[in-house]
């Protein structure tokens, strides 16, 4: 699987979130209880940055800071209006301290 290193695991400590600017696709990487999730950072509704939103660890979602739609960190789907379109999700993992995402999906 083609992959690209985007940073280090230290950028995303447990409970944290970090925005990575990669080409044309800003990426938000979340660490919820040691599990990593990566979403396209731009909300599908009004272009706010999801990495600035509040994470609900119990519900595994992030609320858009602008209008409040919670996006599921696993599927990228919004659970409430006003957003209705999902944001892209990416496979993300750590190898040692290095943080990788799947390469091909980011390039396209």
């Amino acid at each position, binding site marked *: 699987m083609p992959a690209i290193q985007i940073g280090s695991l230290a950028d995303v400590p447990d409970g944290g979130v970090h925005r990575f600017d990669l080409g044309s696709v800003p990426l938000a990487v979340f660490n919820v209880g040691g599990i990593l999730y990566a979403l396209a950072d731009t909300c599908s509704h009004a272009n706010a940055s999801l990495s600035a939103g509040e994470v609900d660890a119990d519900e595994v979602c992030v609320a858009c800071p602008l*209008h409040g739609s919670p996006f599921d960190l696993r599927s990228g789907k919004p659970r409430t*209006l006003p957003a209705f379109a999902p944001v892209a999700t990416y496979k993300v993992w750590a190898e040692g301290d290095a943080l990788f995402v799947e390469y091909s999906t980011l390039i396209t």
Partner: protein
Amino acid sequence: MASEPTNLEFDYTKYGFRQEENYLFKAPVGLSEKVVRELSGMKNEPEWMLKRRLKALEIFYKKPTPLVGMWANHELAELDYDKIHYFVRAGEKPQSDWDAVPIEIKNTFERLGIPEAERKFLAGVGAQYESEVVYHSLREEWSKLGVIFLDTDSALREYPEMFKEYFGTIIPAADNKYAALNTAVWSGGSFVYVPAGVKVDIPLQAYFRINAENMGQFERTLIIIEEGAEAHYIEGCTAPIYSTNSLHSAVVEIVIKKGGKFRYTTIQNWANNIFNLVTKRAVAHEEASMEWVDGNIGSKLTMKYPSVYLMGRKARGEVLSIAYAGKGQHQDAGAKMVHIAPETTSRITNKSVSKNGGKTTYRGLAKVAPGAYGAKVNVNCDALILDERSASDTIPFIEIEEDRCTLAHEATVGRIGAEQLFYLMSRGLKEADALSMIVLGFMEPFTRELPMEYAVELNRLIQMEMEGSVG
């Protein structure tokens, strides 16, 4: 028979009376975490609701007042949140017998004709006085079919799972500053559930009355129409006139499932010291139909844009609204249609009249998302300006992200033509009556959609507004 033109302004006496304040509880003015905790505690709410309220309060504080254009910006700046009473309890609990309602409140609703309307032509009635519903009833024939029509506080207690499943999913607290405020301090409102296949063929009605000065009313309405079900809900709103401002900030969330049909009719006739800042949104699933019939006559500033998210194939949405702005009033009203699924259709018809220095704004959105092929959108907004001191703005947003769709937009702004007046006067009408007839004709697409009793009342109100328009 033709009446003489007079210099009378709008005769609000039927609605503008006030009752002595004789309350069980009245929170001091101002908004704080303490007020929210107290309100939630008095209602014995579950912990999750208190958490939602407190979170929404944080959001309210963080969100700036929206910048929405010169007129509304100036008007919103006058709204002082520290001078509002956020919770006023007038009665013990919602009664199902008018005789059990406290006498002053019962007198209020009798003067407004609510018990009479209930006897004559309604399936159910809710009456909210200040922060809470004081009377609620549903005819037995509908409750036997599984229809639920309750005040929202009771629904949270009696149907907690269904309530939690839908509450805030159509309009989250962070949607806008006033939705956040409502979520923090909501109280009262209607909860409607119509089971699959049940068609409630006469209207349900709720009446919202503010009596106290510097009052904030924050009702929350949640409506669920199951597959193939149908219903019509009507709301009316009035308040006494005071020299200081009051605030009405409601949130209405509606879900219509496959093949369901729902109509929500509003006759808003608030006194001219009320800020009416309301968020109303519906979701229409496959082949469902949602209609907003929205009449805005009163208030100091109304900002209201009922919306329909057309989520399922062949869903249909309609907003038919009128706005009438007289002296010191600004009606900033419109509609939003969001086409998400294929072959969805929508129609927005907005009519506004401004007179005597009043201002009207049409503000709307027509959006077709990628993949909503075959969508058809029709937007029609007409503004009538009756004198040189009055004004109207039209602010339509159109976002089309799908090639295979059709959108038609028509807008007109104008004054009443001298030829029209001359024609009617040549048939023997006095100028004031001719003017009134033209305005009522202009609004007729709206009034013909109302139940007869409401159409007659609305025409009478507009005729009263028109008095003094000539000379």
